[in-house]
Every structure is written in structure tokens, then in C-alpha cells.
């Protein structure tokens, strides 16, 4: 018996190892295994379009109830999943070893996260969001109400079903195809600290929106109002881990996906809401199928040479090149842009140059080393909306001239040479005459 159990453990570990090799890596940044935590197993069917689209793109989804005691993100220090979807807005406590800190560690190790909250969002979900810089409305009963751009429906309702169409303008986040139909949203709003450079509103509320309890009368001005309310936001952490925070779980639901939509005050009526396109494109971004850059083959050398020197001299002419590729979901494609800059940096950039590209991923710049010696760095700091940030730094010292690299004779100094040599000659003659004239 013992033997068999050992064998199973062995096989299990082998298979684990095999799956690990398939998982997220720098060479293959798209996520593969995703844990989905639901607070109600019914969500699996009510949101099946979203899940199916993920599965059809090759993701392995592992559905668990959020209070399942066997939930574990990692085993033996290795993460079992590359992504986490939290469709459990009401859960106060996760089962197993999962808690806020574990989720944040998951993000800090470069894994991705989708969090959907709802009108009844728990403190757990709120604190995960807050740790990432997304502040859901603190009033637990408040939802986003918009009397201006609500979705027209059969009944008058309380205008909590919103037709939002204020998307962020970014092809890399939402795909190159424009989302025509508004996105249906029903849930809570959140705010972002404008100074926070890592979070980004993807879907904002209209200026007429506010966040309040629709059932009670508004006695005080709402804490959140207008277009500062964010409905869906994304976070890209410094280690390029990505996360999506949505104030509405229904946004991902089959019902909203298929529902026709007409925005109040607008005559355009769409047979299908923009939700499916919006969610699919966003999930492509969050699971690194798009907007993931890598820089390889950083090279620099003197003009006319090919080897990388250990040290440059001031006023050397040098060439710097780097190859940048973007992950397309299946392969690395050349990244084409005209705004990649290289700095030659020592406490401040001495040279800042836009690199030219051959459209095949190779970026190239050549410049003259400044007339200053010191320890410089080749720096490429490339941060663009939606893309992973590239931050390359390569240290290289720059030395002054060697003693024999100066010009030996300077034309302007010839009078001085003449003076000294004629003095020497004159002194010799004088000594000769003085000593032997008698």
C-alpha cells in the first residue's frame, strides 16, 4: 500500500511538474491555469459565456466555491494557478488558506486577478481592492444611479442599470475594434486616487451618475458623483501583474451579454450590448494575451566594432540597439513604435535619443559619448498605457583620455616649441663658447 501511495505521489508530482512547465513564464506570458472562486455554484452557468470564451482560448478553469476548505493557491512554494477570478462578492471569508494577504502575494508574484464586486460586496473584496488602489464606495448600500444615461428598459425602474459608453481610449486594453454598443452595468462604483499611476479607469460613469442608496432619500450629497466614478478599472502593478476590478458582477453575466441596449436619450438601439466584446477584450489584456512587451538582445558597441567594450572613452561614437517584441497570445511579434527612447544617464540623462526601428523589432540609436567621465547607464524607460513597462538599465563606465591619447603636437603651440628648442640650442652654444673660448 505504501508503495502504491508513494508511486501516486510520484506520478502526481511529475504531472504537477509537467503542468508547471506549461505555466506562465517570461517566454510565454499568457496565463494557462485560472482559479475561479464563486460564492454560488449557479454563477457557473449564469456566466457561462464568459467562462466558455476563456476555455475556448485555451485556459484551464478550476471552479471552486469560495468557502471550499481545499482552496490553495500554492503548494510547496509553487503557485498552482496563473490567474484568479473572484466572482464571489459576498464572501466574508475564503475557505482554506486563502485570505487577503495570500491574494495580494499572488498579485505581487506577478499573477493576474479579476475581481467583480456587487451591491453587497463584502469587506474582504473591498480590502483586496483597496490594497490595489481601488476604493469602492464605503457606503455598503450605495449603488451607482444615473438618471441621465441609464439603460432604457420596459419598466421605469430606479435607473441603477446603466448603459455606460465612456471607455478608455486604448487599443491595447480594449482591442482595435471599437465597441459600438454601450456596456450594461449594475452595481457599485469606485474611485481612484488620481495620483496613483498604476490604476486606470477603463469604464467611467457619465457626468450625471452618482453613488447612493436608491431606496432611501438622499439627505447628504453623495460621496461619489459624476465621471470621477469608475465602473471598471484595471491595475498594472510594478511587476506587471494585472488586475481588473469591476463594480458589477452582472457585467460578466450571460443575461447582460445578450441583452439589447438602448441608452436613455439616445435613439440608437443595439440588439446586443457591448458587454461581451468589452469583457472579452479586457480579459485578453488581463491574462497577458495583449500588451505584453519584452526587450531582448541589448547591445552596444563602438561604431565600427561589434564587441561590447567594458569601458567607453569620452567622445567615443557608439551604437546601441535593443529588440522589443510584443506577445500576441501565441507568439512574439515585433513591436513597432516611434517613441522608444534611450538615455545615456548619470544622475540625469546626458543623451536622450529616440531610437529608429526596422519594423522587425530592432531598435537602434547611435550617438556620441558626452565629454564627461563617470559611471553611466544605458536606460530605456518605456511606459505606455496598457503595455507592460520596460525598464532596462545597463551600467557602463566612461573614462577620460589615456595619457597617450592626447595629441602629441598642437599646431598652435609651435611658437613655444620653437622658443624652448632655440633656448636650448642657444644655451649649448653659449656654454661651449664660454668654456672653450680662451
Amino acid at each position, binding site marked *: 500500500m505504501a508503495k502504491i501511495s508513494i508511486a501516486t505521489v510520484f506520478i502526481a508530482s511529475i504531472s504537477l511538474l509537467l503542468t508547471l512547465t506549461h505555466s506562465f513564464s517570461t517566454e510565454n506570458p499568457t496565463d494557462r491555469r485560472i482559479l475561479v472562486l464563486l460564492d454560488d455554484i449557479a454563477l457557473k452557468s449564469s456566466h457561462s459565456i464568459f467562462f466558455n470564451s476563456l476555455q475556448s482560448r485555451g485556459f484551464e478553469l478550476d471552479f471552486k466555491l469560495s468557502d471550499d476548505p481545499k482552496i490553495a493557491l500554492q503548494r510547496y512554494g509553487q503557485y498552482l494557478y496563473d490567474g484568479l477570478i473572484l466572482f464571489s462578492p459576498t464572501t466574508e471569508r475564503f475557505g482554506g488558506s486563502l485570505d487577503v494577504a495570500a491574494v495580494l502575494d499572488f498579485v505581487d508574484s506577478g499573477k493576474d486577478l479579476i475581481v467583480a464586486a456587487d451591491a453587497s460586496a463584502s469587506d474582504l473584496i*473591498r480590502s483586496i481592492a483597496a490594497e490595489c488602489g481601488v476604493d469602492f464606495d*464605503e457606503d455598503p448600500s450605495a449603488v451607482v444611479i444615473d438618471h441621465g444615461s441609464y439603460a432604457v428598459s420596459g419598466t421605469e425602474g430606479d435607473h441603477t442599470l446603466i448603459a455606460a459608453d465612456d471607455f478608455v481610449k486604448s487599443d491595447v486594453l480594449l482591442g482595435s475594434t471599437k465597441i459600438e454598443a454601450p456596456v450594461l452595468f449594475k452595481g457599485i462604483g469606485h474611485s481612484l486616487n488620481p495620483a496613483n499611476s498604476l490604476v486606470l479607469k477603463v469604464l467611467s460613469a457619465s457626468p450625471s451618475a452618482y453613488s447612493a442608496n436608491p431606496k432611501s432619500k438622499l439627505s447628504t450629497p453623495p460621496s461619489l458623483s459624476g465621471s470621477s466614478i469608475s465602473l471598471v478599472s484595471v491595475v498594472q502593478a510594478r511587476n506587471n501583474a494585472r488586475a481588473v476590478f469591476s463594480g458589477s458582477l452582472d457585467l460578466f453575466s450571460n443575461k447582460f451579454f445578450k441583452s439589447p441596449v438602448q441608452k436613455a436619450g439616445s435613439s440608437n438601439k443595439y440588439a446586443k450590448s457591448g458587454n461581451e466584446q468589452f469583457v472579452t477584450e479586457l480579459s485578453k489584456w488581463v491574462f497577458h494575451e495583449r500588451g505584453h512587451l519584452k526587450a531582448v538582445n541589448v547591445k552596444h558597441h563602438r561604431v565600427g566594432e561589434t564587441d561590447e567594450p567594458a569601458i567607453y572613452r569620452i567622445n567615443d561614437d557608439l551604437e546601441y540597439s535593443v529588440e522589443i517584441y510584443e506577445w500576441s497570445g501565441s507568439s512574439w511579434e515585433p513591436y513597432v513604435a516611434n517613441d522608444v527612447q534611450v538615455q545615456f544617464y548619470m544622475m540625469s540623462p546626458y543623451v536622450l535619443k529616440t531610437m529608429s526601428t526596422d519594423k522587425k523589432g530592432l531598435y537602434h540609436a547611435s550617438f556620441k559619448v558626452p565629454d564627461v567621465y563617470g559611471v553611466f547607464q544605458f536606460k530605456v524607460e518605456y511606459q505606455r498605457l496598457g503595455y507592460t513597462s520596460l525598464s532596462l538599465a545597463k551600467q557602463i563606465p566612461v573614462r577620460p583620455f589615456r595619457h597617450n591619447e592626447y595629441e602629441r603636437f598642437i599646431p598652435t603651440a609651435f611658437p613655444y616649441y620653437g622658443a624652448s628648442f632655440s633656448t636650448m640650442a642657444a644655451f649649448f652654444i653659449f656654454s661651449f663658447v664660454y668654456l672653450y673660448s680662451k
Partner: protein
Amino acid sequence: MAASTDTTAATPSSTLRHASGNILAFFILLLIGVLAFSIRLFSVIKYESVIHEFDPYFNYRVTQFLTKSGVYDFWNWFDDRTWYPLGRVIGGTVYPGLTLTAGTMWKVLQMLNIPLSVETVCVFTAPVFSAFAAWATYLLTKEVKGIGAGLTAAVLLAMVPSYISRSVAGSYDNEAVAIFALIFTFYLYIKTLNTGSLFYATLNSMAYFYMVCSWGGYTFIINLIPMHVLLCIVTGRYSPRLYIAYAPLVVLGTLMAALVPVVGFNAVMTSEHFASFLVFIIIHVVALAYYIKGILSPKMFKVAVTLVVSVGLVVCCAVVAVLIAVVASSPTKGWSGRSLSLLDPTYASKYIPIIASVSEHQPPTWPSYFMDINILAFLVPAGIIACFSPLSDASSFVILYIVMSAYFSGVMVRLMLVFAPAACIMSGIALSEAFDVFTRSIKFYAFQAVDTVSASTVSPQNNVVETDKKEDVLKERPSRKNKKKEKETVEKPLKKSETEKRPLILPVEASAIALFLTVLLGAFYVVHSVWAAAEAYSAPSIVLTSHTRGGLHVFDDFREAYAWLSHNTHVDDKVASWWDYGYQTTAMANRTVIVDNNTWNNTHIATVGTAMSSPEKAAWEIFNSLDVKYVLVVFGGLVGYSSDDINKFLWMVRIGGGVFPHIKEPDYLRDGQYRIDSQATPTMLNSLMYKLSYFRFVETDGGKGYDRVRGTEIGKKHFKLTHFEEVFTTHHWMVRIYKLKPQRNRIRGKTKKSRSSKTSSTKTRTITKKNPWH
């Protein structure tokens, strides 16, 4: 009489005595060399064969580079591991004498198949050169006052504590070879002055060149010798010998000095060298005047003088005016800060805290004179008096030397080192003269039966105790013996008159007692010197020991920390610390440092000082902008090591505040004092240096946090670090290494939880605020 036989032409017996005396002198010198070498080995025996302190580590590292890469690479060495990110052109900013000397010694030993390591050679360079210095002292004093004085001076120098303090085995610093070079240059100058030989004049220039290569103190030579020349001219002692001793030195010496990269054009451009040029002009004018005086009749000469003086004055005024204008146009009047602080002792403390912050740049206290030169302090006046009888060119030089060096040693404790040889020479002369008198008296009474006449001549002088008068008379015997022919011819008339006088003879009892007391005095000096060498000056300062009831306790924290750095950090990581530890970090841990003991860039040091005096967040930003990964602080509060960073903190504040005015010293002071106890100011308690020093300190003694150096409980005991994390603390907590935390991966929003709401909001501000250094 013994004296009179000496003065007459050499008889066969006196030649024999001469020869045996020379052989004896040779062996005595050899033993002096052995003594000078071996007294400096206490540090190796008591501790181990290591390089000491701070600067020697840099010199050692440079020597290693030299032996590995050769002279040309050394000359062009651009070091990217110090002063990050500025780097330092080592080849052009270092005095190469010491390094080249040790490198050559190592090469020679290798060629002789003696496989010593570079470190061993470096450790023993200073003792070897102190033996050379003792011999050079012998030569110099012999030129002034004869063999006896020379030997006495040499033996005194071999164990003068002041010199031992800078030249124990392992103290591999510029001074180790520079003192030898200094004395030897002076010897050659005196030799040239006495002989008038152009050969020695050339040698003198080369010795001067070696001195310029070795130490910035060469400016002492290039100012002292012109002063002496001027003195000779003013006192009417001008001679062709003086001209030969001086003119080639200025011309060749300046040319060669300009060849040293670190000096370069300074040799003709800075005020330190102007005195030599001025005197160079004067000596030519004087030489011309003497020449003209020789060929013209007295009357014609008078006419010529008035003519020349009137024209010359005008020209001189013009030249001086131009010179003053040029000099005045530079902000420091053409003087470097260190030289200015020599002329005006309060200069550094007023304007250049970085010079004032170095303890060896402080004025010495009176006890330190007694500690460093011991009985020599009392013998020096006697030696000066002895030098006045008779006053020769050489003895006037020695007098000038001691007067100037006494002044400089009073300004900077470090220059005690220059004073010590002068004190040894003077004391050697004094002791030698005293011995001369006493032994002669005893000898005289031993032969009294033979010669009764002389006794009667002596008796009236009996009641005169040791005064200048008697030394006056005694002097000429040894000095005359050693002077070359030309010298004797010059001073012949002088000597003739003196030989008329009878040498001083004291009563035999007085002589015997005085002799005994003098020997006893010498014995005390030896005892003191050996004690100083063994106990006071042999500690390598990277390894500390303390004697407790449990026996000897060794504190090897520095090397522990540096070893940790070299084994646990990436080779390109940058380590920030106060500049004192820069050289050691680069040499022992091989990590890049921001500032080091070569304090060439005040702004950079001020940046580090500012970071250390700033709150954590601001400090993190400064360090991060300099790519610093680790911060190293030295903390003595646990074991009572008093030269730690908290005690140096006032200089960090002062130097930092000198460049970045938002650091204000009064913010750190309570009632004019730096305090770290409960009276400390909030700025002090929030400064990075306080936090890094006392982080977790309270855990060591059960919640008291008692600092043994400051002798108080610390002011803020429990605190957390937000931007730094402790990565290593040595066994006795003397060195603590912290790592800069990376920027947070995520930026938090407002959290509802009251527990962390405060910290998180501050954190948000922290990170989102743009780093001003980027």
C-alpha cells in the same frame, strides 16, 4: 688636552681611532635600523599582519592594481567603484610614491624568487622605511653637528612615538615613505650647502621629486628651503654654495614636480609654490650683486646699486602688482583649503567643515606633545641653544625647521609627524653635546694627575651649571671633523679664535651624576616609546580588542561586515556609508561606494550627509536616485565603541547643511548639544542615522536601550522602518547593514480599516510623489 690633539693634523693613532669609530658607527647604525624596524612589529605580533585603518586600504588596493596591471594602466586608472556615479581618476589624483615604492619592492622580491604577497610587502613597507628614515636622520644630523649627534638623533628617531604612530607594520600610508623622503631631501640640501657640489644638488632635486611623488607635505619643503635661503641672504651668509644648493632645486624640482599627475600645473600655479620662485628671483639678484661687487670698485658699486635699486624697485612693484591681481582673482587666493587652514587655524572650522571634521586636522592638546615626543619636548630648547654655537648654515636650517614645524604641529595634530624628526635632531644634538661634556670631564679628571694646569683653568667655571655658555664652547670638535675641505677653509678664521678658548670641564661628581641622570632620562624615553609602540599605536583599528575579566576580547566586526557584503551582495551593488568607511568597503568588500576617504567632492559627501540626516522617506529617495542598494552604519552603543556614526553625526549634519540648506543644524541640537536621549529633538529622532543605529537596539538589554557610548538611554526606543530593512548586524552590533526596500509593487488606496488607515495614507503620498531626483 684631548680637544687640542683632535684639532691638529691626523696622527696615526687618531686615524686608527677614526677607522674603529667609523666601524662602530656603522654597526650602531645597523642596530638602529633593526631597532626602528622591530619596534614597529608589535602590531603584527599582537594582532596580525593586516593593513590598518582607512587610507592604507586604499593604498593597498591601488598597489594591488599596480602589481596586476602595470604602471601605465595605473597611471590611467579610472576607478568606477568609488564615488559612484562620478568615478575617480585614480592615476591623476593620487600621490604615487608609496604605491610605486611598494610595487617595486614586490617586483624585486619576485625577481629574487621571494614569493611574498603584495599585502605582506605593503604591511612591512612602513617599518623598512622608518629604518631608512633613521639613517637619513643620522646623515642630516651628522652634517649639522657630527657623528655623535647623528647617532643620537637616529636612535631617538627610530623610536619616537609620533613617528611610530604612522609607521607601524600595516600602517601603509603616504607618510610612511614621505618622512624618509623629507629628511633625506633636507640632508641632501644641507650636504649641498656644505659642499657646494652640483652632484648633491641634482640628487637633492631627485629626492625632492620622490617627496613630491609621495606626499602632499612636499609643500613644507618647498617653503622651508626658500625661507632658509632668504634667512641666509638676510644675515649676510650668501655664498656660491647657497646658490648651488637652491637654484637647481627650484628649476629641476619644479620641472619634476610638474611631472607628477596629481601636482601637474599646480607646481607653478598655486600660492604654495610662489615663495620658492620669489626667493629664486631674489637669490639671482643677490648673486648678481655679489658678482658686480667683485668686479667694480666700491665707489662704482655704490652708483650701480642706486641705479639698479631704483629701476629694480619699479619693475618689482609692477611684477608684484600683477601677481597680487592674479592671486586675488581666485576665491581662495590661490591657496588650497588645507594650506589656508595652516596659515589661519580657524579657517577650516569656519568655512570647510569637511577638513575640520577629520580628527587629525584638529589642533593637538598639550598632553599629546608629551605622548608623542615625550622627553624630546624638554631637550629641544637645549638643542636649539647648541645649534647657535656656532651658528652655521646647516644649524640655522635645523633651527628654522624646528621653529616652523613646531608652529604647524600646533595647528594640526597630524603635522606632529613633521615636527618629530626635527625634535629628534635637536634632542640628538643636545644629548650628544651633554654626553660630550660629561664624558670629557670624567676623562679629564681621570688624567688629572698628568695635567694639573688645566684643572685650575676650569675651576672658576665650576659653579656654572649646564647653560648655553658651556655648550657654546664644546661644539666645534665634532662639527669640524666632518666638514669637507671647502667648509673648513671658510670657517677657518672663526674656528681659530674658538680654539683659543678652553673646553668646559665640570666637576667629576656633577658629571657622573648628570651622566647617570641623562642615561636615566633616555631610559624613560625608551620605556615610553616601547609602551607607545606596543599599546597605544599598534591597534589596526579594524580589529579591536578589550581586556576584560574573562580575558582578551576581540571585536572583529568590521571584517565580518565587509565579508558579509562581499559574499551576499551582487558585485555591482552600491553601498552607501559615511565617507570614513569608503576605502575599506571598496578594498575589503569590493563593492561600489558613493563617497570615500578621498574627500574630493564636497557636494557628493554632503548628499550622503543629507540623506543620513533626513527622515527615512527623503533619505530613501536620495539613496535610490544614487542607485544605492545597501546602507552601512557603524554603531558603537552596544559595546562602547566611541568613534561610531552617531558621534560623527554632527559632521554629517554640518557638511550636509553646508550644501543643502534645508538641513539646519539647530534642528538637531537641544541646548546646543547633540543628544539622543529623551531630550533629543524630533528631527534628530526621525533622522535616518538615528533610526538605523538604534533600530531594535532596545531588544538587546531588555527594554532599556542604554547607549554605552553616550551613557544614556535612547530617546525613541520602539519604532519600525518603512523604507529600509535590516539585512545584517555584526556580532557586537558595531556594523549594521540595511537594504533599501524596493518600491511597493502596488499603490494602496484608502483603506477603511482604522488600524492601518494612517500609515496607508502616508504611504500613498510617499510613493506617488515624484522623486525629485529623477
